[in-house]
């Protein structure tokens, strides 16, 4: 059954904006290139955009990177379906995020600047002298990123569905626009590297701000003010669900939900900057203080996200019907449908294009980040230790294609809920790299093997706990990301309880291994590395002068 008509005006606007953005993506290859660098033949150039983005470009890049299409689709969807705990937690999440990155990310920038690190796994390898720990961080990063890219496609798919493209009858035709969009994305990422999403992010973010500001002013006026919107949300969320005998959702969290609410916010905030794509955007900035300045100005996006979340409640009042192609209710269509129902087609087109383009920016950065991790921490560390920068860039470009094809197959071949479950697990897994990365920025106290075992314990515990959460309606596994701490009634985000277990295991084993006098790895960093800024020379440069003053140079034993 194909119950949707194609909305031509909106579709034309979306296609036009998409073409504009694609052209920008290809042109970006020549953007901000220094004259002496010929082509994008190193990871610094291709994978980090030349490591030269200033405060504003970084602001757009990080904004485009962290606030993804899936966020725009899923957060209001959660508000519409289940209310504050699973939806509005995104607001405290993105509030506490920035003080946290203010504290930790400038140190990661400094040590990466000194040593030429491209990924967080590079840093872990250099800090602990352990390529196995580095491998653990890299594999976690890549595995957690894949479903995240797949979810960006889910975001595009939501837009295409409400535009009337595709039918449930012909699978190939349904997915054709999606495949086309991704081929274009893959092509300009391949040629332009990180410069492409950086440039496109500016357009995407401006469109999103425009769409949200207009919607937040216009829609409440249309529906009789926030008062009526909130009261209809309260009614809907308070209605008892026949299947479970419990209210459909949470309007204002009660005491029983407090621990879920704060642990979801805190765990997500700590996890976000462990993802490779966030680190990539930070390391692409040109100065130690760029990320700190951004910590003070990025909250503007959080404000936008908060109002966007409230559009989920607006949709309740508006009676939006998010019906998917097969006739089932799909909450993820709520926001695209809301725009299409209540705005002129041309403006709905702009808003839908903003969401679709919003998928392209993070998808590009994520595939670049995952590719960099593969190149540095698997290919270089385990396959070809003597690889030169040119080959590194070549490998990374190819891997970025592989990663995207993988995500595309994921979305087309598997059930959409598989991608969502994997993303849920990815968030739990990625937080387990926090002790190795963040503790390493401050201290070498932890033992590398203790960290590795702690990581493994956290991952196993988190995976089992998430599997055991049963959806009360469908009785399916992976029914949510919150579970009671074993032996208590205290429900928290599984990533947080796994993280606590991980930390305890790592600390206890560090004491044990120290008592057993197990060899610790070589630390290639110095305390000064963590406070270096852009005017301080890199290690390679210092080394050169040392070679000059000491004939023969120091022995290259490491």
């Amino acid at each position, binding site marked *: 059954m194909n119950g949707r008509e194609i909305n031509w005006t909106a579709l034309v606007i979306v296609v036009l904006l998409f073409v504009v953005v694609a052209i920008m993506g290809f042109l970006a290859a020549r953007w901000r290139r220094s004259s002496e660098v010929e082509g994008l033949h190193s990871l610094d150039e291709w994978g980090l955009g030349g490591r030269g983005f200033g405060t504003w470009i970084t602001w757009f890049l990080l904004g485009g990177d962290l606030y993804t299409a899936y966020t725009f689709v899923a957060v209001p969807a959660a508000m519409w379906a289940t209310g504050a705990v699973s939806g*509005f937690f995104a607001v*405290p999440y993105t*509030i*506490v995020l*920035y*003080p*946290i990155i*203010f504290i930790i990310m400038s140190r990661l920038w400094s040590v990466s600047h000194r*040593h*030429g*690190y491209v990924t967080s796994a590079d840093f872990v*390898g*250099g800090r602990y*002298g352990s*390529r196995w720990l580095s491998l653990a961080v890299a594999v976690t990063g890549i595995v957690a990123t894949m479903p995240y890219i797949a979810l960006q496609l889910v975001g595009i798919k939501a837009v295409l569905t409400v535009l009337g493209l595709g039918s449930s009858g012909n699978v190939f035709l349904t997915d054709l626009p999606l495949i086309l969009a991704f081929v274009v994305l893959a092509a300009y990422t391949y040629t332009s590297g990180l410069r492409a999403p950086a440039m496109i992010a500016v357009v995407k973010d401006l469109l999103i701000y425009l769409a949200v500001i207009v919607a937040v002013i216009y829609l409440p006026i249309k529906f009789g003010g*926030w*008062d009526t919107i*909130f009261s209809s949300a309260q009614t809907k969320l308070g209605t008892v669900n026949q299947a479970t005998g419990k209210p459909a959702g949470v309007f*204002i*969290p*009660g005491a029983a939900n*407090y621990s879920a*609410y*704060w642990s979801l916010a*805190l765990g997500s905030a700590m996890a976000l900057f462990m993802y490779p794509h966030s680190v990539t955007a930070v390391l692409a900035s040109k*100065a130690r*203080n760029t990320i*700190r*300045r951004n*910590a*003070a100005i990025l*909250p*503007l996006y*959080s*404000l936008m996200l*908060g*109002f966007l979340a409230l559009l989920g409640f607006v949709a309740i009042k508006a009676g939006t019907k998010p019906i998917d192609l097969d006739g089932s209710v799909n909450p993820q269509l709520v926001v695209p449908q809301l725009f299409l129902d209540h705005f002129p087609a041309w403006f709905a087109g702009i808003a839908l294009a903003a969401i679709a383009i919003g998928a392209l920016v993070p998808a590009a950065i994520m595939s670049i980040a995952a590719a960099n991790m593969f190149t540095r921490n698997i290919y*270089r*560390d385990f396959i070809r*230790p*003597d690889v030169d920068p040119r080959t590194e860039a070549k490998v990374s470009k190819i891997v970025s294609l592989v990663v995207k094809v993988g995500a595309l197959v994921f979305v087309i071949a598997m059930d959409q809920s598989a991608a969502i479950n994997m993303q849920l697990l990815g968030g739990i897994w990625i937080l387990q790299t926090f002790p190795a990365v963040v503790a390493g920025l401050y201290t070498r106290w932890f033992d590398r093997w203790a960290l590795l075992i702690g990581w493994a314990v956290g991952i196993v515990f988190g995976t089992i706990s998430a599997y055991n959460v049963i959806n009360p309606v469908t009785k399916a596994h992976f029914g949510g990301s919150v579970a009671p701490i074993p032996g208590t009634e205290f429900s928290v985000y599984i990533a947080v309880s796994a993280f606590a277990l991980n930390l305890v295991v790592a600390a206890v084993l560090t004491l044990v291994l120290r008592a057993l006098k197990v060899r610790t790895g070589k630390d*290639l960093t*110095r305390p*000064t590395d963590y*406070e270096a*800024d*852009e*005017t*301080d*020379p*890199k*290690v*390679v*440069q*210092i080394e050169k*002068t*040392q070679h000059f*003053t000491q004939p023969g140079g*120091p022995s290259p034993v*490491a």
Partner: protein
Amino acid sequence: MSHADGSGYSPNGDAFPEESRLTRDTAIRGPARPAPYIGAGILLAAAILLPLMPQLYSFDAPRLAGMPFFYWYQLLWVPISAILTGTAYWLVTREDRRRRAEVRAGGPPRAGTASADTGLGGDRP
């Protein structure tokens, strides 16, 4: 270890060259004064902890323009958090600048030790 990016080198940490050459261990900042860091720490701790305490704000009343307290209070925290982080930035970078200036004024001249594109000792943008 396999770090082809040139980080596989460690200087003989105990044997500093007599002349004022730049080494991996040359201090790049002077000693810290604790006050700015304590101040920034308090601001950042507040910006992290207070939004994570739903018991402080999980109420319906008072409403603002029809919006329950729970919602508008958290939205209000976005600019508050930005101000707290911005103030912490001001405190920390001011002290940071002072510490670097201290080393650069009293320390060895550092020009000529790196490639031409690294302007040493200059003001940051």
